[in-house]
């Protein structure tokens, strides 16, 4: 395993708040990873196919200037991560959301020890979330207790499409999963990030189906469910559930890079999310190292809903500030300078949050 030299923290430039047109933004990247997909860690062809799939996402949706060589994409290491995520002062805080993928990679895909060490070296900048898998049974419950204590967990990343022996997926409302959520509640792990989106798809245990989020969000109202990739490719199912469940949030991982290649589509995604969920429950995520956060933040700050899409209201600066950092900071208790804070929107608890901003005839 590559050793991170803990006595030599990666050089990071001094904090600088991201500023544009006289507006200051506090940026939280709610979904990053420190992965190792190098051939020596691949267990089988699926390990290669998995990272190749990621690399295709990266190549397909990135501006040409942001495309990495394949070799660099396989593994970044802590020093490069710190430079890419924080180096120019764009991101103020980032949260690790690791995937195990133990059937594909010998030491797993997300590098627990390396990421956690980095978090300890930069506690003001990084939060480590870990994973659990209810198919690990009772043993996994004990492990979760240990992990929660060791890592000081505030959140977990769940990958329901992960393979495990003969199983190619699980559901959040499986009885054993409920035991884990009860334990999360006991341990104060309140942020449950759930991958619902592209990549692996099991068979009938459909990893895209967000219906299981509906079940757990209703039964665990004191936990917050952050649906990564905002349910794409089933955006409509996700929006409908999130509209009814105030503790369901949208993570923009993999959705936000469409801002470059397909800005009209991205505008529609944002328009739908603001319409159904409101401005307080949408989280910026680069999904580093799928993409680096800097260009995404810059583009998002400059972005606007096209004028001809009169079915959506414009994205205000306040909405952008909340999406880019304030919403995630609130979930994780990350301190935000008082002058950068904004009050919550005055919105209904359920139902479409901003119906008034949305009628073609009102334009």
């Amino acid at each position, binding site marked *: 395993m590559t050793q991170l030299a803990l006595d030599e923290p990666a050089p990071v430039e001094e904090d600088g708040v991201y500023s544009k047109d006289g507006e200051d933004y506090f940026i939280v990247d709610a979904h990053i990873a420190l992965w190792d997909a190098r051939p020596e860690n691949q267990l089988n062809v699926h390990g290669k196919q998995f990272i190749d799939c990621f690399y295709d996402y990266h190549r397909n949706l990135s501006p040409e200037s942001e495309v990495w060589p394949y070799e660099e994409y396989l593994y970044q290491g802590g020093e490069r991560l710190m430079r890419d995520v924080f180096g120019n002062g764009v991101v103020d805080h980032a949260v690790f959301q690791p995937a195990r993928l133990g059937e594909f990679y010998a030491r797993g895909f997300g590098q627990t020890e390396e990421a956690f060490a980095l978090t300890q070296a930069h506690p003001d900048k990084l939060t480590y979330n870990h994973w659990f898998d209810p198919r690990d049974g009772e043993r996994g419950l004990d492990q979760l207790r240990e992990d929660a204590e060791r890592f000081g967990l505030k959140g977990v990343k769940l990958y329901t499409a992960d393979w495990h022996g003969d199983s190619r997926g699980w559901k959040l409302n499986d009885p054993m999963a409920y035991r884990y959520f009860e334990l999360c509640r006991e341990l104060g792990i309140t942020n449950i990030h759930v991958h619902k989106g592209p990549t692996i798809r099991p068979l009938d245990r459909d990893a895209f189906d967000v219906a299981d989020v509906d079940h757990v969000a209703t039964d665990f109202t004191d936990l917050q469910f952050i649906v990564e990739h905002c349910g794409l490719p089933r*955006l409509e199912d996700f929006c409908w559930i999130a509209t009814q469940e105030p503790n369901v949030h949208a993570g923009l991982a993999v959705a936000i890079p469409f801002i470059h290649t397909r800005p009209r589509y991205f505008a529609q995604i944002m328009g739908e999310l603001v319409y159904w969920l409101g401005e307080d429950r949408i989280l910026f995520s680069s999904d580093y190292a799928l993409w680096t956060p800097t260009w995404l933040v810059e583009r998002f700050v400059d972005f606007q809903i096209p004028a001809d899409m009169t079915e959506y209201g414009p994205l205000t600066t306040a909405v952008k500030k909340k999406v880019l950092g304030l919403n995630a900071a609130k979930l994780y208790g990350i301190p935000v300078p008082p002058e950068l804070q904004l009050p919550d929107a005055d919105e209904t608890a359920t139902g479409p949050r901003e119906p008034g901003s949305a009628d073609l005839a009102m334009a």
Partner: protein
Amino acid sequence: MTATLTLTEDDVRAALSTVVDPELDEPITDVGFVRSVTVDGSVVEVHLRLPTSFCAPNFAWLMVSDAQDALRALPGAGRVVVELDDHHDSDLINAGLAADAGYRGTFGHEAEDSLDELRATFRRKAHTAAMERALTAWLRADPARAEDAVGALLLRDLPAGPVTDALLDRRAALGLPVDPTSPVLLAPDGTRPPAGAVTATLRRARSVRISVDGNAHFCRGLLTTRYPGAEADQTPRPSIDSRPLLPLEVLS
């Protein structure tokens, strides 16, 4: 009688154009999923490809088995070989197809449900998306039109053209009424929503349409990244390709 049927590549491609990606609601020939076609006498061999190794195996099975059925039904077709390339389940799927093992026979315990419900779900989504495109086009055609007015709109009020035709096709596929005096706006179960639910029904339909179109953006783009040159095999999709890309900085 010596009727000789000479099967051509065009016949094969025409048969494949009846096979639809259920999630994108597009023929596999238009999205570029057909990698190669060879015809040797009555022997047909077709290779299909998908945007990623991890595309859903149940969707993959639907498309490859539909392709096999469509080709076997071709007059003049003898041995038909359909293979899916570069998928994490390629070996399993290709062996299952060759053995006529069926979906459950191929995937065993993982295939708990029939694919009929999956197919039906996406037919309903395809209809909902087509309905939203027709209604939004109607709304955009006159700024004075309000969203809640779409509840009273009848099929005869829609302009003739491909958007309306697509809607009628998808209604017919679901057994929904297509007569000119039928309402355009229907709830997902095919009923007419009450007046108070018109805007909400349209709004939900819009999110379905954005999902379907969004998947088309992603799949089409990924296919061309994975297989350089594949764009030459793709037919433009009007609902996502009809507008030019925006400049990156718009309004303020």
